[in-house]
């Protein structure tokens, strides 16, 4: 059982699916010779050839549009956004063309659009974004956001096999920092639409996803040690469609909930989750659902200000204490 990184897990998932299914191909900027800005597709061009690893011009609309057309014809394109921040350029074609194709026209669009998201890396306002909120809002898209090495592999494979378009947001902070042993023989597939209990607890639940899962786990450990508070951590894994059952189960178990994400607060996914909790299990709440999210500003660059704007482990600790005392 070799230890691999989160990045390597994505690489392996892509590789295995391309080996398994000749319909799978990749397209994106600099993914061929270079192997991608983060080297996720290093070695793919040599092995799979230029027909299945296509270097494109700097044209996110063309990447997504071409993927959609090829998908209509039975292929399984996986698009890379060099940084997920540039998915905004394809916002219109994703939300208007791709997301609606099945509904309005009976067309299948089994594409994956993946790319590095997230902050804590001194990337500044345009290399640190978390774009999920803009897409969660669009019926027809699925969104996954792996937090673990295992899910990085399991979700990329599941995304490629899914009949619906899937946005796959991989957190660049985790790329090489996160390592885990994955069984070599086993085929790893993480079901889309199902959250995961990352840690069991009874006093409070932190519902979150992506890199924030690790901060939540850190906060949970700290709270156990310093406050004897037992925190449950829910790793959503799939952001669309949301796993209501898992959310409700956590609320019923703990009665106190923090919803946390790295994205800014207003209009972020935490609002949606809070509303669902209100609708589905209001009576089970002993305290208001509170959000721990980034401050409502563009993400600044310098370490001091980036760290200020983004939620940190201590923030989760402070928020949890407040909530438990409520």
């Amino acid at each position: 059982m070799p230890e691999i990184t989160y990045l390597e897990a994505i690489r392996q998932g892509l590789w295995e699916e391309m080996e398994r299914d000749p319909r799978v191909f990749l397209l994106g900027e600099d993914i061929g010779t270079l192997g991608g800005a983060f080297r996720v597709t290093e070695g793919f061009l040599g092995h799979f050839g230029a027909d299945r690893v296509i270097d494109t011009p700097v044209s996110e609309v063309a990447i997504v549009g071409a993927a959609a057309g090829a998908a209509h014809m039975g292929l399984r394109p996986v698009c890379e956004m060099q940084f997920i921040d540039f998915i905004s350029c394809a916002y219109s074609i994703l939300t208007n063309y791709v997301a609606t194709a099945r509904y309005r026209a009976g067309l299948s669009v089994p594409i994956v659009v993946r790319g590095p998201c997230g902050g804590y890396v001194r990337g500044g306002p345009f290399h640190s974004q978390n774009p999920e909120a803009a897409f969660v809002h669009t019926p027809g898209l699925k969104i996954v956001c792996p937090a673990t090495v295992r899910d990085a592999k399991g979700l990329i494979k599941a995304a490629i096999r899914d009949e619906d378009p899937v946005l796959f947001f991989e957190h660049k902070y985790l790329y090489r920092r996160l390592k885990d042993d994955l069984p070599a023989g086993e085929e790893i597939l993480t079901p889309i639409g199902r959250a995961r209990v990352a840690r069991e607890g009874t006093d409070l639940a932190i519902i979150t996803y992506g890199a924030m899962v690790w901060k939540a786990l850190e906060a949970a450990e700290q709270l156990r040690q310093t406050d004897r508070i037992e925190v449950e951590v829910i790793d959503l894994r799939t952001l669309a469609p949301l796993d209501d059952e898992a959310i409700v189960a956590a609320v019923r178990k703990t009665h106190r909930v923090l919803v946390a994400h790295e994205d800014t607060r207003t209009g972020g996914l935490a609002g949606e989750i809070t509303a669902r909790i209100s609708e589905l299990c209001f009576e089970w709440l002993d305290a208001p659902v509170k959000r721990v999210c980034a401050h409502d500003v563009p993400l600044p660059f310098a370490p001091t200000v980036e760290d200020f704007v983004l939620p940190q482990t201590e923030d989760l600790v402070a928020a949890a204490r407040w909530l438990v005392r409520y």
Partner: protein
Amino acid sequence: MPSAIPAGLTRAQLLELHYFMRLTRSLEERLVGLHRQGKVVGGLFRSLGQEADAVGSAYALSREQGDILSPLIRNLGSMLVQGARPVEVLRQYMAKAQSPTCGRELNIHFNDLERGFLGQISHLGDMVPVMAGIALSFKLTRQPRVGLVYVGDGAMSTGAFHEGINFAAVQRLPLVIVCENNGYAYSTPTRAQTAAAQLMDKAVGYGIPGVQADGNDVIATHAATKAAVERARAGEGPTLVELITYRRKGHAEHDSQPYVPAGEIEAWAGKDPLDLHRRRMLDEGWATAAEITAVDSRVERELDEAIASCIDEPFPEPDSALQGVYANPPRAEREWYRQMPTAQSPDRPIAQSPNRPIAQSPNA
């Protein structure tokens, strides 16, 4: 003795071209009638005067080989050539449950990849990268098929057009881009859309050939497109085909064209593509008046039947709207407020005290 027919066309094909142009025009005229009767839901878009460009260009594709096109709003004719049936168009315009999109999308926004047409979405330009993707699939799977995408003089200003055509060019995809220069994008004349002297000039910047043809001459549009299709099929990449024509009706039925200079429409009416083709067939001895009249009657008969067969069909069932956003789950949730009155407050004990701090509430 009749003179030789250009572009390798047969007499039967010339009549077929006439059939499709006539069918386009008459179908739209019938829709005008239905619109006036209040039967059409939403706007009505006409291609009067542009039938030759849509029909002639689409006719250059091979249905046997599985070529696929993506029309714009004024390319009804191209869809008919690919096998779209008038009753489908009528149902779409009347938002019938049995329409190809089950009443979800408007007018000619529908598709059948088997027959070889992919419906557009409203956002101009987007179909260019999507059709590039279809052409890419042909290339990757080594199929000798060709894609064709229509863009207007207006749509060419969009970023999506640029990214799509550039991608197709650099990948040498089997894609033909047909630019319909009909003089206007809604009210905007082509000179306010671009400073380029002619739209085919845009090909240069993508390193592909640009050609031009008289968009009102169905044989010319056919011949120009055919050469581009053959080039594409031979693996030589995309061609930009500019067809020069004119939009004689408003942008949509409600548009009275106040922005059009006096006399312009009339001048173009003198170059009507159906008249031109009919006159030429007669003059050159390629068809008899009787043959042409027979086609015209066939068209009207077919339309009578098509209208009769669908006009009384119902709209879609309301909750059919929940189906098919995703392959999985196949059905969207019905909103809670539509589940009344069976909906109950969930597992809530009746006498539960509310969580409001009663003492402080100003309205308690």
